[in-house]
């Protein structure tokens, strides 16, 4: 175990890194990159005085967001119909201020896909935690959506772990795309 003094000296000194920034990555995401940066996120969180429960929620939110980028970003290095070993662009940030963690992700999406996401996301902002848990239970038992590469449970998993309503946005981006951002609070 580190003493408090040693812990203090472990604060990042690399330019651009500050104690409030747990993690930031922008660029291409693949499953291998997620595995590697997942380890970095876990280690950085262990250096903070954060409960095991909160650390687990942050890690889960981070993985759900990063895997959404791999599966759904419109900016793809691999052919769009390739279902495995995909590599797509986006960013994920984890920050820590005043005992609150924010996990924010961004990636471009096709405008038609943006229209599909909005009706999934907007209700999650309005639901109570009990309603979110109920929707989670129902979705878990429902047949997997044929259009979904994951379980369709990802946004509900993020919303269930978020202590404040999730926030999202769509802004015009290059090449006629929409930049999708999503924010969770833990």
């Amino acid at each position, binding site marked *: 175990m580190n003493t408090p003094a040693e812990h203090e000296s472990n604060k990042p000194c690399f330019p651009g890194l500050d104690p409030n920034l747990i993690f930031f990555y922008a660029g291409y995401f693949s*499953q291998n990159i*997620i*595995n590697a940066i*997942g*380890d970095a996120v876990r280690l950085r969180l262990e250096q903070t005085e954060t*409960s*095991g*429960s909160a650390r*687990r*929620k942050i*890690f*889960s939110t981070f*993985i*759900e967001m990063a*895997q959404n980028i*791999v599966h759904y970003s419109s900016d793809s290095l691999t052919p769009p119909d390739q*279902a*495995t*070993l*995909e590599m797509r662009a986006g960013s994920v940030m984890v920050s820590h201020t005043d005992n609150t963690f924010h996990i924010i992700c961004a990636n471009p999406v096709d405008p038609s896909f943006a229209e599909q996401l909005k009706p999934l996301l907007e209700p999650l902002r309005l639901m109570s935690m009990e309603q979110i848990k109920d929707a989670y*239970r129902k979705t*878990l*038992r429902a047949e*997997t959506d044929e259009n979904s*590469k*994951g*379980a369709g*449970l*990802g946004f*509900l*998993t993020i919303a*269930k*772990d978020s202590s404040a309503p999730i926030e999202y946005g769509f802004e015009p981006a290059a090449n006629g795309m929409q930049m999708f951002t999503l924010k969770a609070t833990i």
Partner: protein
Amino acid sequence: MEKFYLAATSNTPEVDFDFPARRLLLKGESYPESAAAFYGDILNKTSAFLDETREQTIHISVQLNYFNSSSTKMLFSLFDRLNLAAEEGNTVVLDWHHDIDDETILEFGLELAEDFPAIEFHAHAIES
């Protein structure tokens, strides 16, 4: 039926499905790029094993540190199939391990216990 074994990787669990001994183990992390692909094979083999298993006791131990949303869905399908085997006259015992801090994994275990009452469910809280 032969054993089915996969070593753990950084994002997939150790799978030790010893069908002849009727002891199944999932241990580690579960966030594969495609949970449907990873668990598809596991589900098929388990289903084939259960098709030819009658009036036996089957132990399954789940010791997962983390699983993502798409793995959750596949685990639910796996226990749905095991519950059917239990309804057909087998005894299915599930040892569900969760970190003491991890209410998400405990809650999912309780969901399984509620939905699949034919499975004998035991939760084990692990000190981290």
